[in-house]
């Protein structure tokens, strides 16, 4: 299990602004929080819900006010 306690992204949209974001670990929705002032999107690891010491799959989706979409996909060991 990693010592890191969160996964962090920068999330920005130049014109219409961020409308929504969702994150999934191993196909389960997880709580990502957005700090718009610092354009920071982050998930704090939850030891009660996420099993440590194994490979996980991460998907993050974001959408702006005009329905332009982006996503990030990766696997990680935690």
């Amino acid at each position, binding site marked *: 299990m*990693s010592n*890191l306690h*969160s*996964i*962090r*992204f*920068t*999330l*920005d*949209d*130049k*014109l*219409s*602004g*961020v409308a929504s974001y969702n994150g999934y670990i191993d196909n389960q929705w997880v709580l990502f929080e957005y700090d718009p002032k610092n354009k*920071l*999107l982050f998930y704090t690891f939850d030891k009660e819900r996420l099993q440590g010491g194994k*490979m996980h799959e*991460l998907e*993050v989706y*974001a*959408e*702006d*006010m*005009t*329905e*332009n*979409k*982006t*996503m*990030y996909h*990766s*696997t*990680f*060991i*935690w």
Partner: protein
Amino acid sequence: MAGNEAVLEFAVEDVGRNTLSSFMVPDHAAKFGWNTVNRYATSSFEISIPRGALYEDVFFNYSADNVKNAFYPVIHYVHDSITPLHRQASVTVKADMIPVGLRDKTMIVKLGGNGMKTSRGGTWNGDFITAGINEFGVYTLDVDTVPPVLRPVNISLEKI
């Protein structure tokens, strides 16, 4: 306990009984009252200001410039940026030249002095788009077809 006090005496000269209504009204202007609902409209622009949104009576100025090679070739100069609004006003702009396929991604934007654009959103009604504004200034339309940028900070493939 006594407070500190400063006194400044000065004279005030009465230059007559000029009021707002006695000054020359510029072209393309309307007189807006602070305690009335105000509306100004041309064939391609309309602003509606609710009662109590202005702090005092103003002569409203409006002009428009054409811009070449722009997505929307008009810039609307809506009064001036130093007159405050206490409540949101509604602005409607004719935008019949915007392709139907791009209308969902088109919005009214405020142009800042540094070239920065601030979206005010927009709701379409036929060939017109309407948005609320919190301040006077320079407005135009723009289209957002670029998705948000999502960059990992502390995660890389298969490793945390």
